């Protein structure tokens, strides 16, 4: 009988959970031990952050207890990793415990670095975690009209379509309240377009024009001045606001930097086709923790996990897996009242068919249920 192999997964977000559950379904519990290290108590379905501030969804339906989300045979260790020692194949946990591994999967996600933008804290709002999403909902409740500035402060950030999705729903919300004609919506974006991919950007820009949404491109936020109520870019442009909704700057987790695994921005440099870290064939990274040139999103984590679980299942059973991950992703995004579109793309192929449909909106609307019942469980 072969010795039991230890697979350690760091992170209990979308990437870590899907990866653990998918791999568990493909491997024998007697031959492979799968352990997940994470310190959350609740798992929040972040894409609902574009609905919750408008009372389109109740936040209670977007949150589940983390420990209940793992399939039978996955060991969940509620702890925090403080150091990853790749040469010695061990990780150290905050509790003082150490773990050794045969395979390590880093799915630690990323973090918000508010301090990168002077004036951000206490002034700008966002919808990228639940507390701030609820706070933003309160700000919108008391909003009576004026100028709203919205957009990402810099690139990269999680779920690239989310800022434009929120903007379309904001427009709809303000029209519903009868204050759209008293409100200017200004959309800022770091590149010389309104989205990372040119053809999607062209499509979104037309929809913005139809809805009288004003755009400011090449706008990388440098600072926020809460007294004068204006936001300034490093390109030298300044825009005033009454309500500022700003995606915070993102960075890799500090444990990645501390463990000397970080490249620029604190992200892990992984092989884009094999997902392994540098020359190591036993260390992988997936999800928002990587420096891969694709979206930092649950959809990415889902597709990466599908690939990596298959690869590891083959290797754990002594077989060779010679397929590559090609950056393939499918992502459904809202484009207005009752409309959405699904984008299919990969490293080499931008989205081709770009059209809105009510069916896609239904898909998006029910995505939290699909996520918790099937996607996280590794059965789709």
């Amino acid at each position: 009988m072969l010795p039991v192999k230890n697979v350690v997964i760091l992170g209990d977000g979308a990437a870590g959970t899907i990866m653990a559950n998918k791999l568990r379904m493909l491997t024998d519990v007697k031959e492979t031990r799968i352990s997940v290290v994470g310190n959350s108590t609740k798992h929040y379905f972040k894409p609902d952050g574009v609905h919750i501030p408008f009372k389109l969804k109740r936040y209670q339906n977007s949150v589940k207890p983390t420990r209940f989300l793992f399939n039978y045979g996955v060991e969940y260790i509620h702890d925090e990793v403080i150091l990853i020692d790749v040469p010695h194949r061990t990780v150290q946990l905050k509790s003082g415990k150490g773990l050794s591994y045969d395979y390590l999967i880093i799915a630690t996600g990323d973090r918000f670095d508010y301090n990168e933008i002077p004036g951000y804290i206490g002034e700008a709002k966002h919808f990228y975690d639940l507390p701030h999403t609820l706070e933003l909902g309160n700000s919108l409740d008391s909003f009576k009209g004026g100028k709203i500035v919205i957009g990402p402060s810099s690139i990269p950030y999680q779920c690239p379509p989310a800022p434009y999705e929120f903007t379309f729903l904001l427009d709809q919300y303000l029209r519903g309240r009868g204050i759209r004609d008293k409100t200017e919506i200004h959309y800022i974006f770091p590149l010389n377009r309104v989205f990372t991919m040119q053809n999607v950007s062209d499509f979104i820009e037309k929809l913005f024009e139809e809805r009288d949404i004003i755009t400011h491109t090449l706008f990388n936020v440098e600072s926020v001045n809460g007294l004068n109520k204006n936001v300034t870019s490093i390109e030298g442009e300044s825009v005033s606001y009454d309500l500022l909704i700003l995606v915070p700057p993102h960075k890799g987790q500090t444990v990645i930097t501390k463990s000397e695994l970080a490249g620029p921005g604190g992200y892990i440099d992984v092989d884009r086709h094999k997902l392994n870290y540098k020359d190591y064939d036993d260390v992988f990274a997936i999800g928002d923790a990587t420096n891969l040139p694709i979206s930092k999103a649950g959809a990415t984590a889902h597709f990466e996990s599908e690939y990596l679980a298959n690869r590891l299942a083959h290797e754990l059973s002594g077989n060779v897996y010679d397929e590559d991950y090609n950056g393939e992703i499918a992502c459904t995004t809202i484009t207005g009242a009752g409309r959405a579109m699904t984008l299919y793309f990969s490293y080499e192929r931008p989205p081709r068919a770009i059209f809105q449909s009510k069916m896609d909106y239904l898909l998006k609307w029910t995505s939290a249920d699909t996520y918790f019942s099937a996607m996280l469980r590794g059965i789709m």
Partner: protein
Amino acid sequence: MTMSEEIKATKVIDARGSFCPGPLMELIRAYKEAKTGDVISVYSTDNGTKKDAPVWIKKSGNELVGIFDREGYIEIVMKKTR
């Protein structure tokens, strides 16, 4: 001799293999950390950078030193002037 060697780039960013907007964001990251007068050079294999980077350099009020076709990649050199 490359142009960046002639001018002596303060910082060279090798973003070859990274897709748009990666090279531009690397350039912006380096710009934030640079001092006025520093020369930054970025290598890119993504053709989009050839269009995006000069537009950003102009909009941000800095100086585009040059765009150079190298073997299998392009080199864009800028000077931080503000």
